[in-house]
């Protein structure tokens, strides 16, 4: 049952991804309807899938790489729909749905069986820490997509060739504002995630900070976004620079997540 739900959600995200790429080249009312409805159905099924797993496992299903990637994609889609509701930028799907699909695809290839929880994870911190971390990272993922859109639009305006997506992309100001907003949402979430992680580490391993690779990368990410916010407020690093930084920031997150997973070292091995 869980498998069926997951594969169904994956299929709907796949449809949304394909159509969102078509949307890049030839957008119409029909393509946007297909994107929104298939992403919407996919999201509903995905939600059911996560709830189902929660019920079967008896704990928050963010305890291995498969679950984590899946939950992360879920957060990204959630934020996508919130932005869609607020700003109605259908083109955002072309920049975000492929990421969602790739994440879900890699999640589908990771081992899925539900194992008994290791004693370290049997803590109320599990839910708080992971949900905060993934929501924060999802906001950064979205800032990455918006940052890409900004760079594309800024390129059109700066180079004075107003072809391609110029018509359909929102204004630079709108993109910059969304980018800023996402980071101001993501940053406190990441901060709280790190704080809860530190507290949890203390209760589980007896020390607050262990220089585990994931801890180090989280800290690096935290600094990058702290710089993004600081530079914006103090030095006026907005627009292109902010867009570039939010792209770099998200790439760092991806390295942190998948790189460490591949190395399989450190205390965070379960994820």
């Amino acid at each position, binding site marked *: 049952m869980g498998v069926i739900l997951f594969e169904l959600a994956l299929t709907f995200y796949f449809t949304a991804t394909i159509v969102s790429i078509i949307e890049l080249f030839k957008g119409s009312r029909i393509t946007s309807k297909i994107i929104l409805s298939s992403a919407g159905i996919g999201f509903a099924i995905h939600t059911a899938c996560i709830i189902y797993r929660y019920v079967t496992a008896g704990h928050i299903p963010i305890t291995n790489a498969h679950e984590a990637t899946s939950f992360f994609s879920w957060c990204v889609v959630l934020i996508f729909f919130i932005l869609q509701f607020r700003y109605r930028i259908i083109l955002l799907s072309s920049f975000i749905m492929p990421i969602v699909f790739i994440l879900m695809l890699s999640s589908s290839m990771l081992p899925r069986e539900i194992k008994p929880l290791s004693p370290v994870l049997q803590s109320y911190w599990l839910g708080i820490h992971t949900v905060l971390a993934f929501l924060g990272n999802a906001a950064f993922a979205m800032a990455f997509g918006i940052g890409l859109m900004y760079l594309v639009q800024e390129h*059109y305006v*700066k180079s004075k060739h107003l*072809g391609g997506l110029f018509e359909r992309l929102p204004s*630079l100001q*709108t993109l910059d504002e969304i980018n800023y907003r996402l980071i101001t949402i993501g940053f406190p979430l990441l901060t709280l995630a790190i704080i809860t992680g530190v507290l949890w580490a203390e209760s589980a391993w007896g020390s607050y900070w262990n220089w585990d690779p994931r801890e180090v990368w989280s800290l690096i990410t935290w600094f990058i976004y702290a710089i993004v916010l600081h530079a914006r407020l103090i*030095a*006026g690093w*907005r*627009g*292109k620079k902010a867009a570039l930084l939010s792209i770099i920031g998200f790439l760092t997150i991806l390295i942190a997540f998948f790189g460490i997973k591949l190395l399989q070292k450190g205390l965070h091995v379960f994820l």
Partner: protein
Amino acid sequence: MKVFVAGLNHKTADVDTREKFTFNGPRLEEGLIRFKELPDVQEAVILSTCNRVELYANVRDTAKASESIRTFLSQFHNINRGSLDNALYIYDDINAVRHIFRVASSLDSMVVGEPQILGQLKDAFELALRKKTTGILLNRLMKKAISVAKRVRTETRIAENAVSISFAAVELARKIFTDLPKKVSMLLGAGEMAELAARHLIGSGVKEIIIANRTYDRGCELAKEFNGKPVKFDEFIHELVRTDIVICSTGASNYVLMKSQMQKAMKERKQKPVFIIDISVPRNIDPEINDLDNVYLYNIDDLQGVVDANMFERQKEAEKAEKIIEEEIETFLKWQLSLDSVPTIIALREKAEEIKKQEIDRLLNKIPEIGEKEKKAIEYMAAAIINKLIHPPTVALKEDSEDKDTIIATIRRLYGIDGEKNENK
């Protein structure tokens, strides 16, 4: 019954000639009524704009109508026939329908895709409706022309891109800023083009305008007109800190704004984006300013480039529009053909026969035990009833009368023949 067009436009007549043929205000009503009263004209609409004067009619005979319309025009406007004949184009039937559809969809306009023409056509039609100069054919045609124009507008991107320099500037401003009403703009110098661009900006919501002109008095005059704030020319640099859009056209022969000055201003305004439009020739703003982050500098050639690209885009869209129009001409002509009396008589009979057959079948199904003889009698009676019922309309259709078009249309409507419903949605 034929659709007929006689007209002149910006391609066939210069503005002098067009002015002479314009139907203005009360003259339009008068002209329309007299046009309708011409012996060969059964229905009439006059479209008169600054770029075209067109007379649409329902006529029986193109040659006769064309002659009497020429006479009417030259008499009404008091112009000799020679200059009229040079400028006038005449279309009938399919070509006339095509022409009207193209005019409505703005394919025949001086600036292809400009939106005003549809409104002007609607006004012309409304006046004709008020004055009761139209009937079945032109009513249908005008409504169709309006719906075709709407279809072209929604299905192609013909009216989407700005095709004038000042509109292109506003379009760009909209892609840099979201909330134009909250942005501050500055007029640097007061050339005619700059004024026009400023007007368009105000039209799209910009409220605050700073005006810096070499002659301060002229600046104050403009400020009054735009409800803006005049500043001394030398002080414009200080105002850059709070200005988001700069429109520059001074008569200076060198740069009035250098990169280093702009850099400083950007720092002070914390890198908030600035859109600078330099329409002066020679240029007044150091082109290298465009290399600064968050500064977007467009000169007159850049804007012209945008306009040209948009024009090209419109041409491509116009081809799509022509295809839509050909489709719509076909449905219109099909409808018009059905207005002939012979197909109407046939359709009426078919309809009656169909009803007869259905009812007899139903009856026979209900009382299957009925005998052959009775069946014959029932069929005979049904045939007699429908024949008697459709006899008078058939006779009316065969008669040759003045208001035959109306009779045909009425009969089709009353008897529910043809797909009127789909067409009138």
